[in-house]
């Protein structure tokens, strides 16, 4: 178990370092004069020269690489090219918006998807089961930004129940939650069907296993068997899929943020691209990579909490023996 933990942590650190290296290489490989690319075509030659000196762009690439790694490891993601603000500060201001939206979307999807999946597993062949089988595939296939626009048209224009723009009054939790409903729903809808399908198939498999049969033979109540004994094991594949899907959700959140004009990392990235603000772009990408990698680590570790066989080293995380 300890070996597994050490190996997962080491892999995580290596992935993060590898991502930093790729990020640096891509930034360095951008074609054209870096000052023009960063400052835009209006910069005077004198200002461009000043800027190159300040950003260290005239130094050899290996030296820049060392400085980049050193800065990142000390929490310094550089300065916004336009305003001179610290990128760390900008990313940290946007970060909670994206994370809260992603967490709300996952929460909503789990809250709806899991009961649906349980119902379908306990009533295979029912009308809801058939409906779920049909709609889940369709909903997964529709991109979240399309769902976002549809939700806006229906619930903000036809039925003017929800607002279109923004994340709400910063001092009002109620307003913020109210304005999070549509964007979170736009992200969650595709996942509801997927989670329900996963829970259904896993639960059906677990309900047919020996220990469940034994539990029934002992006369335990069916509800206790399903919710206490079967669901725990049936949930492991779902956690794996949701964990792996965090990246996809973050990607979807970027587009949803833009459509709902919400603050967040997505908006930050888009503005950074539009203004060729590479330090900001680097900072956001790095934070997303770290977030994604750490989430996957947490998901892996959660298996060990849920399945004692993994703790005892009888099977590997993810279910492979």
């Amino acid at each position, binding site marked *: 178990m300890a070996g597994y933990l050490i190996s997962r942590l080491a892999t995580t650190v290596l992935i993060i370092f590898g991502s930093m290296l790729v990020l640096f290489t891509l930034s360095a490989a951008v074609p054209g*004069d870096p000052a023009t690319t960063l400052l835009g075509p209006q910069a005077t030659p004198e200002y461009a020269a000043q800027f190159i000196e300040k950003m260290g762009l005239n130094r050899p690439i290996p030296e820049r690489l060392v400085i980049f790694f050193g800065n990142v490891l000390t929490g310094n993601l550089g300065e916004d090219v*336009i305003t001179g603000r610290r990128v760390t500060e900008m990313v940290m201001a946007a970060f909670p918006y994206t994370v809260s939206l992603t967490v709300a979307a996952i929460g909503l999807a789990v809250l709806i998807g899991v009961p649906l999946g349980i119902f379908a597993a306990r009533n295979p062949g029912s009308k809801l089961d058939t409906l779920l089988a049909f709609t889940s595939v369709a909903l997964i296939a529709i991109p979240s930004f399309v769902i976002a626009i549809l939700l806006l048209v229906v619930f903000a224009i036809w039925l003017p129940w929800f607002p*279109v723009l923004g994340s709400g009054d910063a001092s009002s939790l109620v307003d913020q939650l*109210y304005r999070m409903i549509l964007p979170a729903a736009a992200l969650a809808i595709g996942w509801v069907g997927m989670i329900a399908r996963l829970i259904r198939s896993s639960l059906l498999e677990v309900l047919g296993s020996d220990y469940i049969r034994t539990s029934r033979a002992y006369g335990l109540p069916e509800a206790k068997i399903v919710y206490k004994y079967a669901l725990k094991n049936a949930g492991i594949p779902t956690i794996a899929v949701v964990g792996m899907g965090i990246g996809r959700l973050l990607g979807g959140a970027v587009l949803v943020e833009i*459509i709902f004009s919400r603050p967040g990392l997505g908006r930050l990235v888009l503005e950074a691209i*539009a*203004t060729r603000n590479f330090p900001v772009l680097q900072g956001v990408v790095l934070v997303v990579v770290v977030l994604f990698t750490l989430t996957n680590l947490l998901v892996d570790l959660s298996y060990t909490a849920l399945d004692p066989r993994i703790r005892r080293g009888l099977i590997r995380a993810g279910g492979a023996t």
Partner: protein
Amino acid sequence: MAYSINRRQFMTTAAAVAGTALLPSVPAAFAQEQTTRLQIRTRRDLEVLDPAFRSGAEDSGVCRSIYQNLIVYNPDQVIVDATKMEVQMDAAESLEMISDKEIRFKLKPGQMFSDGYGEMTAEDVKYSFERFSLAAAEGKESPYASDWAHLKAVEVDDRYSGRILLERPRASLEYVLTSTSGCIVCKKAVEERGISHNMRPVGSNAMMVTAFERQRQTTLKRNPDFKGQPSGFDEFVMRVVQDPKTVELALRSNELDFSDADPTLADSIANVADLTVDQMPGIADVWLGINVEHAPFDNIKVRQAVRAALDVDEMLTAGYDGKVTRANCMIMPQILGHWKDAPVHKRDIELAKSLLAEAGIADGFTCKLLVLNQPAFTNMALVAQAQLAEVGINIELDVRDGGSFWSAGKGDEGKKLQMFIMRFNGALDPNYLAFPFASDQVGIWNWQRWVSPEFDEAFAKAAEEMNPVKRAGHIVDFQKAMEDSAAFVWLTHETLIYVHRNNVRPSVGPAGTSLTYNRFEPK
């Protein structure tokens, strides 16, 4: 403007009341609905509200509402033709041209800067203008230094009076004085606040910035110290909305009252009862440029062949869905010096083929066309590709993102360019529109790498000629030199579109290019 309570507001209010026990600030937020508030879309966050270092049109619009100029354009005129603009005094009580190189001004007494920074003086005017080109502010040179290029000094005579001294006459001085580069900042505030002045600016105009929330909105409120004509609205909320579809939905749902718009949005929103769509000719230049140094384009007959092979109208249909008019020269009709008799080149395949034959490449050739990765430009490039293929010119499209596109013509890199589709956001001054084509811009903005003594001479004369008729003649002259070079295929000047509530009268400035929020009025 949302004066009535709709269902959404009712629900917000109900939710807010329900949460009152937890969040005492909610009733206060609701109370803001009682003010006359206008919600305006900006495409991105405001970045630098310092006139000398503004980062774009979004910043400029707010700068014009929070700072005063010596003079401004008369807001009551509905202007499409920028050659017929009238000016009026703003911070100046009087402005007098002593000579072509000396302008005397006297400020109105009692014009107070916000946040207790005191009265505007001639020292503030000197500081505001000289920091563009004479003194690097905070060690940085202004990217708008060329606006004040002929400035020699601003001499202060007394507390309210001074003189603007120029090295050479400057025909476009009126444009500079009325533009964002003519805004007057508070010397003391800029020096004291440093970089924080960018987002906590101190001005003396009708509005002042009261809140800035990155990625969300900026709030402007009436400046209580302003003695002139008050703003038509108590409050402006500048909301950052990037996605065009979201703009449409927000306009439909009363969450935006004013926005600029893409042509596609104008169509879909034209029939919404509460909204008005204003369209006017644009002042951007969009053209297909040819590098005259690069073979085979160093032969003028090849350039003429390209021009003869292209059908500009078809390209515009593909690029802008027919929503823009065709350009035939650089200066647009509403700007001084428009060449109304400029030739209109119709597609002539036979002529194109014969010109290629005369150039010794009757079998055609292959070359690259560089374009920005935006639908309008890529669509036009695809049509050009098909049209040029008919005369044997095979085009490879080189589609790039903004970062690499805008550096493609710079320095020696620019020597590799062959053809490109370019957009240059215009201004009211013809010399500003023309400067990218001067010889000293080769390797900077002059991606055609075209050097013309005739152009340079006419350009220099136009910059200093104070007689508008004579100046217009010089401007036409330099456009003729461009025409003769066949290095430019003019495409369009685009179209400006604004959408607003019916009960709002926006102030978009001359030729629709200078949004001035403090002059927006309720109807």
